[in-house]
């Protein structure tokens, strides 16, 4: 039972509302900035090589017609989902549609590994029902009703984020025949030669720096599951470590992993945003009232003098 409860912590519905807005808008950005060649593939399916999932589901070959429909449906459903009105209906459309979108985008012989957490997030978000009072739209961002269903969705996203790191350490061992030769190898030199740009090329003169970075990277990836059990400030440090890791990768190799980075927000207590603002506003109002009272007293005293 304790195990089951670990998968379904009590988390406020407001966090789901924030994630819906952020992730559905992010999907629109992703379609234009990252996996942005899906419609091109519809025009030129020459290099199309369907992946396992596309073959299992017997998905049609990309065409101008089906990729254009997919594009329009995704944009509309994301915009609706992001408002938190009808988020579940919209979400159940976005999840399969975006999965297909990315599946086409990666069906050309190259698969990226930065979309796992985002795709899983899109599939779990629509499983969360609104609270008993059924707060929708704007009201949902402040909904403090704690829910196990919300907790499960959040937990799934968190596991997927961490899996992205931990499993990439596993892949490094596997590709070396289950040996630890990756961190001492010339992999970053190799990557920089193939993606030349000033910061990276400068580092080519200092291979030992690259080796240190490789060791820090793989140790961080192996230890990443610990973050699932850390709390508060320590969890924040863990998240910041990996966000720094992505910043370094971006500087050296121009590889940003933003679709994974945005999913780190599943760890953030977003449900506190609205109460924090309310608190600030009421503090300010109270201060203003006090100031006015003070002002009034001074005026009285002056009048009395």
């Amino acid at each position, binding site marked *: 039972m304790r195990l089951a409860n670990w998968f379904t912590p009590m988390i406020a519905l407001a966090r789901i509302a924030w994630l819906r807005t952020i992730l559905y808008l992010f999907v629109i950005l992703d379609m234009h900035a990252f996996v942005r060649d899906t419609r091109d593939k519809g025009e030129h399916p020459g290099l199309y090589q369907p992946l396992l999932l596309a073959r299992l589901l017997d998905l049609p070959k990309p065409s101008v017609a089906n990729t254009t429909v997919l594009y329009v449906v995704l944009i509309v459903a994301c915009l609706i989902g992001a408002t938190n009105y009808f988020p579940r209906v919209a979400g159940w459309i976005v999840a399969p549609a975006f999965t297909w979108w990315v599946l086409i985008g990666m069906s050309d012989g190259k698969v990226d590994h930065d979309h796992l957490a985002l795709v899983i997030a899109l599939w779990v978000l629509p499983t969360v029902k609104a609270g008993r009072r059924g707060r929708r739209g704007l009201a949902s961002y402040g909904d403090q009703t704690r*829910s196990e269903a919300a907790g*499960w969705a959040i937990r799934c996203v968190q596991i997927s984020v961490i899996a992205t790191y931990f499993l*990439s350490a596993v892949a490094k061992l596997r*590709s070396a025949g289950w040996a630890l030769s990756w961190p001492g*190898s010339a992999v970053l030199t190799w990557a920089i*030669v193939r993606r030349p740009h000033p910061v990276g090329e400068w580092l080519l003169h200092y291979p030992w720096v690259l080796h240190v970075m490789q060791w820090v990277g793989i140790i961080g990836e192996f230890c990443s599951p610990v973050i699932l059990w850390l709390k508060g400030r320590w969890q924040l440090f863990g998240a910041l470590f990996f966000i720094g890791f992505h910043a370094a990768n971006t500087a050296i190799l121009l590889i940003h992993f933003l679709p994974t980075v945005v999913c780190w927000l599943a760890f953030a207590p977003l449900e506190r945003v609205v109460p924090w603002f309310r608190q600030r506003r009421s503090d300010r109002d109270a201060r203003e009232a006090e100031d006015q009272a003070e002002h009034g007293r001074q005026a009285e005293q002056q009048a009395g003098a």
Partner: protein
Amino acid sequence: MVRVGRIGKGLRVLVAVAGVGLLINGSVRASDDAWPFGPMSQYAMSVPDDAKIDYTRVSAVTDAGTTVDVPLNIEGAGVARAEIEARAGEIVKNPSLLQQVADGWARKHPDQPKYVKLELIRDTTQLVKGRVEGPPTSQVLATWEVRR
């Protein structure tokens, strides 16, 4: 507080455990084909200190008589370098696949010089003791006279 029922909870735990199982299976034995449950294998290989580093590019002769490096991205020729690298073997066997590069360029840049001849080129950089040694050497893998 909203709890989920016993069945709802059981199903959720089952789905999560199955998902983790699929991910572990993918990482231990599957390939990229199993996306999204494949291994996280980007940059996962151990590159030896004396490796030859290959970099594949496409060079074009234009109808203006110039020789240019084809921008292999979506805005350039509409096809990414990674796709060309992944399919290099097929292109060597069947150079007509390069026609798509010329078509993509012509469609996206109608006012620029057209490509008349394309070459798939491999630049090789040699590592010695983990350091880059000298400039790369180039080899032409495939040539394609563009069809109009």
